[in-house]
């Protein structure tokens, strides 16, 4: 029966490839993206015609003088691989978390997947409609009303008119903005704005959903609702979700698999627990200082985080902090805009399990946005002693106008270690555990005699 055997083998092989093709929705092969960095006028990606003309004249001059211009050119431009040799496959219904530090290539990958920019090498095969939520409220027009923006934003995200009409009531319900439907969105509070934007996006029905940092803004309750919606979308309806976030808790909750990127390469592809602990424990700058290397492709030129420092109670820069001593986080920011900006600077400290321990902002007490004039700003965030239990922590700093614009952010570029210095509690070994371990002064009233609680 050799003939029959070979026929069934061929059939099986065909069946297997067919099955694979059915369920694989994204195939990425040797993907790479190269940027040319211009050093001379590093501030602007676009050129002025003047520069082109003057460069041309200069090169012509060099040629006439007999000097080569090749070296001059390479000195001004430098190659930079934002993404290199990345290969992976995603199956239908997978929920993939993508993590990595700033500039690791996450956003570049998403930009290629959503066809905003072309790769330099390699290929991607996508099956199904791709929708990306790269930033909340993309394409919202401030002068238009909520109703008009729902249609506009829906169209931008790839929905048809009929589809939007069908879901219109659902979207309005989800966003909780019925009363303001005919008010221009420029009069919305930032919370309402974000809610409306996410509501439109949440009602997309793509086969592949790409989400990048959408949940960075918005109130906590709404975030929960959005995360729930995303889980629904992927688990119940078999959609594929690619989720880029620095919120390790959310990644753990939602994702079934996590990709870790590091300097443009895919460093690890595993279940979230493994990948997150690898991410949290490797490659951090731990000497208590981070300085902006200036090679980042900056989100926005208006505001830049220059440096972050951890200063211990003795006033020295250090990444090793005693648990019984206070310390502070120092942030230096340069504002370069015509005039000044209203901003909020936020600091979040995350522990080694990826759980955000606390978030504090420059507006905690002022209750209005911080006025940031042109120039250099130095901000100091004091952290009390005995507050954080021993362990390793990383810091996220973001400068933004809430709900509108993210000026700059630095994620997990700097971390510090709290060393057990034996505080009062450890004297008694009283099992003081928790995400935070503050010392709290108790009130203790004492009355002589027997108190009968029931009579009170």
């Amino acid at each position, binding site marked *: 029966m050799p003939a029959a055997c070979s026929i069934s083998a061929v059939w099986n092989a065909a069946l297997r490839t067919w099955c694979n093709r059915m369920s694989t929705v994204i195939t990425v092969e040797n993907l790479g993206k190269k*940027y040319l960095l211009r050093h001379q006028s590093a501030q602007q*990606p*676009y*050129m*002025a*015609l*003047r520069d*082109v003309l003057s460069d041309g004249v200069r090169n012509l001059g060099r040629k006439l003088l007999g000097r080569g211009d090749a070296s001059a050119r390479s000195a001004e431009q430098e190659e930079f691989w934002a993404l290199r040799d990345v290969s992976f496959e995603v199956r239908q219904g997978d929920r993939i978390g993508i993590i990595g530090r700033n500039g690791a290539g996450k956003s570049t990958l998403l*930009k*290629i*997947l*959503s*066809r*905003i*920019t*072309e*790769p*330099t*090498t*390699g*290929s*991607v*095969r*996508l*099956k*199904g*409609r*791709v929708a*990306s939520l*790269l*930033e909340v409220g*993309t*394409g919202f*027009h401030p*002068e*238009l009303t909520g109703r*008009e923006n729902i*249609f*506009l934003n829906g*169209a*931008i*995200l*790839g929905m*048809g*008119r009929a589809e939007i009409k069908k879901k219109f009531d659902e979207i309005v319900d989800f966003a909780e903005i019925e009363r303001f439907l005919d008010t*221009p969105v420029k009069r919305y509070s930032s919370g309402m704005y974000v809610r409306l934007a996410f509501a439109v996006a949440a009602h997309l029905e793509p*086969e592949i959903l790409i989400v990048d940092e959408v949940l960075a803004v918005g109130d906590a309750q709404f975030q929960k609702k959005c995360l729930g919606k995303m889980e629904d979308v992927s688990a119940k309806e078999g959609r594929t979700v690619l989720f880029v976030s620095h919120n390790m808790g959310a990644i753990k909750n939602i994702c079934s698999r996590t990709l870790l990127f590091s300097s443009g390469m895919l460093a690890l592809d595993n279940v979230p627990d493994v990948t997150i602990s690898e991410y949290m424990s490797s490659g951090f700058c731990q000497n208590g200082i981070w300085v902006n290397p200036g090679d980042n492709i900056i989100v926005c030129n208006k505001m830049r985080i220059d440096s972050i420092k951890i200063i211990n109670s003795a006033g020295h820069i250090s990444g090793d902090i005693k648990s019984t001593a206070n310390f502070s986080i120092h942030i230096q920011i340069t504002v370069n805009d015509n005039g000044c900006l209203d901003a909020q600077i936020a600091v979040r400290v995350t522990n080694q399990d990826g759980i955000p321990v606390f978030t504090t902002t420059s507006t905690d007490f002022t209750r209005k946005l911080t006025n940031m004039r042109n120039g250099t700003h130095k901000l100091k965030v004091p952290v009390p002693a005995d507050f954080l239990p021993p362990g390793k922590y990383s810091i996220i700093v973001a400068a933004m106008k809430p709900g509108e614009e993210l000026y700059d952010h630095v994620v997990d570029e700097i971390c510090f270690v709290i060393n057990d210095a034996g505080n009062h509690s450890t004297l008694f070994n009283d099992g003081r555990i928790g995400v935070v371990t503050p010392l709290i002064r108790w009130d203790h009233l004492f009355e002589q005699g027997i108190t009968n609680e029931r009579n009170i």
Partner: protein
Amino acid sequence: MEQPEILIKPGMGALHYWRDIWRYRELFFFLAWRDILVRYKQTAIGIAWSVLRPLLTMIVFTIVFGKLAKLPSNGVPYPIMVFAAMLPWQFFANSLTESSNSLIDNSNLLTKVYFPRLIVPAGSVIVSMVDFLISGVILCGLMVWYRFVPDMRVLLLPAFFMMAFMASLGAGLWLSALNVKYRDFRYVVPFLVQFGLYISPVGFSSAIVPQKWRFLYFLNPMVGVIDGFRWALLGDAFPVNWPGFALSSILVVLMFAGGVFYFRRMERSFADVV
């Protein structure tokens, strides 16, 4: 439901481009609709601007060229002669101004969402068409006022409108793509529009250009378009110089084809540069 597979590779952007444009037609209309809605928000007299601007320009031209300079209008009321030319010229000038900035104004979309970028400048041209239609109504009003009746040739007007459309979109594509890369063009465009108004026969008839220069005058493609409009609307008083018109038409087609080609070539890098 079987989903089409999308392949992303270097240099692959071109594959299904025209099919994609069709698929994104709703976005195209939504963007144009947004620009029309937003246009006159928070203005006191709103849409009246679309009526006032061409009307005032026409009055000034009639006074300066018709009354003061006493240029000929071949028996047609001067305001009507001016307005027949204002129609295509204003359409061209507005399209140019709007579309050259369109990509930069929409840069937040370009860097975040995929769609064929061509629909952005094309949308701006559509918005200018609204002004064109409003001006068309004003022209009808003027014709009624002066009791001027166009003949059957007016049926050929759509053909000349197509020519104006191609010229506008062609130039718009060039300038919008160039503007992304070289921001100088945002200063070039207002100058170009102002300059063009004087070297095109808007306030006067192309018949006053000396015979020996007449053919060369059509190197400005808008001369062909404007003469076509006048011929179709005003009749025998404005005969068309057909060799010159052919030259203008060829230039318009070249400008349009070149614009599409250049735009398509530059488009790939828009998101990285803008």
